[in-house]
C-alpha cells in the first residue's frame, strides 16, 4: 500500500514497528441475572474485581509519577478514592443482593447511575468526575468479567500503538521504551495527548479516522509523525529506507547533544539567548536537560484549570518559587494569566463567546478583576527574590493597558510592603506582542516596557484573519507571510531605539530552524521555544555570522510571498549544509 496522509501530524519523528492495536473490549449486551443462592459467589467476584482494580491503579499511579509528573498522577489518586468509596461499594453490593444481578451487571448499573447523578448537577468539576466514574466502572467491569485490560505500561517488544482514542491518562502511563509511535482515530495537535507525545518525543499521528478498519494487529507500519502519514505493510526497501532515516536522526540528535553546553553566539560573537517555553513547574527538568539559557515563557494558566476556585497567593508563590530556584539565576519570564472563552476554566465563570479570540480574555479579564490579578502579581513578586524574574503581560492592544497593569502592580507591591514581605525591586516588565495594533505601534510602548516578546501564533492568525483551527482556511496561515515579517522588523527596530529594551519571540516560529537565519538577521536577541528545538536552533546560530544573517533578512524583505521566502531560506540552509535540521 502507498503512503497515506491519514491524520494530523502531532509529534514529529519516524517509526517503523508492528502495530499494537488497543481495542476497547466488547461487553455482552445482557450482563445477566442470578438466583438467590449465587449471591455470595457474585459478591466474591465483586470483591476480587475491586481488589484487582485498586492494585492496578496503584501501579499506574506510581508509573505516572515517574513519566508524567505529580499533576498528571493526581487523576489516579481520584480513581483510587472512588474505588474505595463505601457508598459506591454498597450500591454495587445492594444491586447483587436485592436486584439479583451478576457482579458485572451490578458494576455497570451502579457506575452509570452515579455518573448520571454527577452529570445532572450543573458543575464543570462534577461533570469531569462523571468521566472518572465511567473509567473506573469499565476497569471494574473488565476485571469482574475476566477480560484482560491491555496494559501498555510495560511491553516486551517495540510497537506502534494504534487505538480509537488514546486518552491522556493512558498516554501518561505508556512504556516509553517500547512505544515508538502513536496512531489514534480521534484527537488533534492541541489535544493533551499530543502535547504529552511531544514532551516524551514519541512520534504521533492523531485524528486518523477509520484507521482501525485498515490495520490488523501485528502488521508493520511506517509512521511519520511530522507529516501525519502512515504506510501499512511497506516493502523491504521502504523499511530499510525508513530505518536508515531513523538511525541518521538518532546520530544527528547525538551530535547536537555535544553542543548543549556551548554558548549560543554567532561566529562573530553576537549573543542570542535560547530559552524554553513551559506550562507547569515540573517542566524545568527538560529545560535544563537541553541547556536552555532561561525560560522565555512560563504559562501560568495551569494553576487555574480543573478547579472550582482561583488558586490562592501561597499556592501560586510556591509554583513560581520552584521554577526560579530550579533555574538558579537564569532569567525566567512569567506571563500573567492568559485565558479566554475558548477554554473552560470553571473557577473564573467565563461565558461562552461567539468570537473567543477577539473577546474577553487575558489582560482584559485581569484589568477588570483586579483582586484576581493582584493575587497573582503578589505571588509573582514574592517569588522574584529567588532568582532572575521578569513579568510579562499578555494580549496588550494599547498603551493604556500597560499603564493600568503597571499601576495595579505598584498597588500589589505596596500591599507586600505593608505586610513586610520581600520582593526584588528591579523586576523587569514586558509585554506580549500578539495583537497587530501593538506590533504596528511598537514605538509607542518603548517608554513603558523593558522588553517585547512576540507571540507569533496569535499575531499570525490576527494579521492574516485566519483561524488556524479551521481546516478550510488553515492553508492560509503562514508565519513567513511578508506582512508578518515586516511587523517583526518594526517591533525589533522600535526596541533598538531605546537603550536596554530588547525583543524576544516565544511563538512556534522561534523554534523553527527555517526561521532562525531570518530572526537573527532581523536583530532578535532572545528566542523561546519548546525545549526539544533549542539545540537545532543553536546549531544554526553558532554556524553563521551576523553580517550574513542580516543579508538574508534583507533579501527576505524583498520577496513577495511566503512560498518564495520559505524556498529561499531552505536554499540558504542547504548551502550551509544544515538543511538536515529541518527534518528532525
Amino acid at each position: 500500500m502507498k503512503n497515506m496522509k491519514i491524520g494530523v501530524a502531532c509529534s514529529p519523528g519516524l517509526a517503523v514497528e508492528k502495530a499494537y492495536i488497543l481495542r476497547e473490549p466488547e461487553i455482552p449486551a445482557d450482563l445477566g441475572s442470578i438466583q438467590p443462592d449465587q449471591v455470595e459467589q457474585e459478591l466474591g467476584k465483586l470483591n476480587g474485581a475491586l481488589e484487582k482494580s485498586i492494585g492496578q491503579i496503584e501501579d499506574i499511579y506510581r508509573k505516572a509519577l515517574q513519566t508524567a509528573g505529580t499533576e498528571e498522577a493526581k487523576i489516579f489518586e481520584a480513581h483510587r478514592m472512588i474505588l474505595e468509596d463505601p457508598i459506591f461499594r454498597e450500591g454495587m453490593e445492594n444491586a447483587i443482593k436485592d436486584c439479583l444481578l451478576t457482579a458485572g451487571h451490578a458494576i455497570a448499573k451502579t457506575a452509570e447511575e452515579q455518573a448520571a447523578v454527577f452529570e445532572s448537577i450543573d458543575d464543570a468539576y462534577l461533570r469531569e468526575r462523571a468521566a472518572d466514574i465511567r473509567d473506573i466502572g469499565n476497569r471494574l467491569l473488565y476485571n469482574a468479567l475476566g477480560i484482560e485490560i491491555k496494559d501498555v505500561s510495560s511491553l516486551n517488544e517495540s510497537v506502534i500503538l494504534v487505538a480509537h482514542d488514546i486518552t491522556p491518562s493512558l498516554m501518561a502511563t505508556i512504556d516509553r521504551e517500547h512505544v515508538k509511535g502513536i496512531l489514534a482515530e480521534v484527537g488533534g495537535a492541541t489535544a493533551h495527548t499530543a502535547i504529552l507525545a511531544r514532551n516524551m518525543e514519541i512520534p504521533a499521528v492523531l485524528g486518523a479516522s477509520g484507521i482501525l478498519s485498515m490495520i490488523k494487529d501485528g502488521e508493520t507500519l511506517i509512521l511519520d509523525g511530522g507529516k501525519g502519514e502512515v504506510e501499512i505493510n511497506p516493502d523491504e526497501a521502504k523499511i530499510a529506507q525508513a530505518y536508515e532515516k531513523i538511525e541518521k536522526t538518532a546520530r544527528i540528535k547525538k551530535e547536537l547533544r555535544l553542543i548543549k553546553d556551548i554558548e549560543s553566539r554567532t561566529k562573530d560573537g553576537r549573543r542570542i539567548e535560547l530559552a524554553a517555553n513551559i506550562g507547569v513547574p515540573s517542566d524545568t527538568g527538560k529545560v535544563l536537560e537541553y541547556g536552555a539559557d532561561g525560560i522565555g515563557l512560563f504559562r501560568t494558566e495551569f494553576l487555574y484549570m480543573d478547579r472550582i476556585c482561583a488558586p490562592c497567593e501561597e499556592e501560586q508563590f510556591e509554583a513560581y518559587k520552584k521554577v526560579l530556584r530550579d533555574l538558579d539565576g537564569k532569567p525566567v519570564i512569567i506571563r500573567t494569566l492568559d485565558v479566554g472563552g475558548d477554554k473552560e476554566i470553571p473557577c473564573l465563570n467565563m461565558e461562552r463567546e461567539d468570537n473567543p479570540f477577539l473577546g474577553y480574555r487575558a489582560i482584559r479579564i485581569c484589568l477588570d478583576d483586579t483582586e484576581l490579578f493582584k493575587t497573582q502579581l503578589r505571588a509573582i513578586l514574592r517569588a522574584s527574590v529567588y532568582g532572575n524574574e521578569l513579568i510579562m503581560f499578555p494580549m496588550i492592544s494599547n498603551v493604556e493597558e500597560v499603564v493600568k497593569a503597571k499601576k495595579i502592580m505598584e498597588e500589589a507591591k505596596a500591599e507586600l510592603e505593608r505586610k513586610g514581605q520581600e520582593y526584588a525591586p528591579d523586576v523587569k516588565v514586558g509585554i506580549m506582542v500578539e495583537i497587530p495594533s501593538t506590533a504596528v505601534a511598537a514605538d509607542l510602548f518603548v517608554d513603558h516596557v523593558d522588553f517585547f516578546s512576540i507571540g507569533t501564533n496569535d499575531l499570525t492568525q490576527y494579521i492574516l484573519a485566519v483561524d488556524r483551527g479551521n481546516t478550510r482556511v488553515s492553508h492560509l496561515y503562514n508565519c513567513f507571510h511578508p506582512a508578518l515579517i515586516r511587523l517583526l522588523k518594526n517591533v525589533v527596530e522600535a526596541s533598538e531605539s531605546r537603550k536596554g529594551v530588547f525583543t524576544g519571540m516565544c511563538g512556534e516560529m522561534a523554534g523553527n530552524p527555517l526561521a532562525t537565519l531570518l530572526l537573527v538577521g532581523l536583530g532578535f536577541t532572545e528566542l523561546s521555544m519548546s525545549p526539544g528545538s533549542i539545540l537545532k536552533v543553536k546549531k544554526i546560530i553558532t554556524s553563521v555570522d551576523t553580517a550574513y544573517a542580516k543579508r538574508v533578512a534583507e533579501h527576505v524583505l524583498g520577496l513577495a510571498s511566503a512560498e518564495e521566502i520559505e524556498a529561499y531560506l531552505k536554499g540558504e540552509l542547504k548551502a550551509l549544509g544544515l538543511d538536515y535540521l529541518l527534518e528532525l
Partner: protein
Amino acid sequence: MRSTEILIKNKTGLHARPASEFVKAAGRFKSAITIEFKDKKINAKSIVHVLSAGISAGSTIVLTAEGEDEQEAIETLTDVIDKFEE
C-alpha cells in the same frame, strides 16, 4: 457519640480538592462519621456522597462521629475544615 456544628467558610465549600482532602482525613478513623446537611445524612468517608451533596460556602453542617476514636475524629476533621480558609 460526639457531634459538633461547623460553618463552612471557605469559598469552594466542601467540594473539589477540599472535599477529597476531607474524605481522605475521615477515612483514617475507625468511627462511623456522618455529616448532616439540609436534613440529609451523608457518609463522610464517601467522596461520591460528599460531592453530590453540594455543601457550599456559608452552609452549616453537623458532624457526628461514633466509635472508639470519635473524639479525635471530631477534633481532626474540624481542624481540616478550618484550614480550608484562605
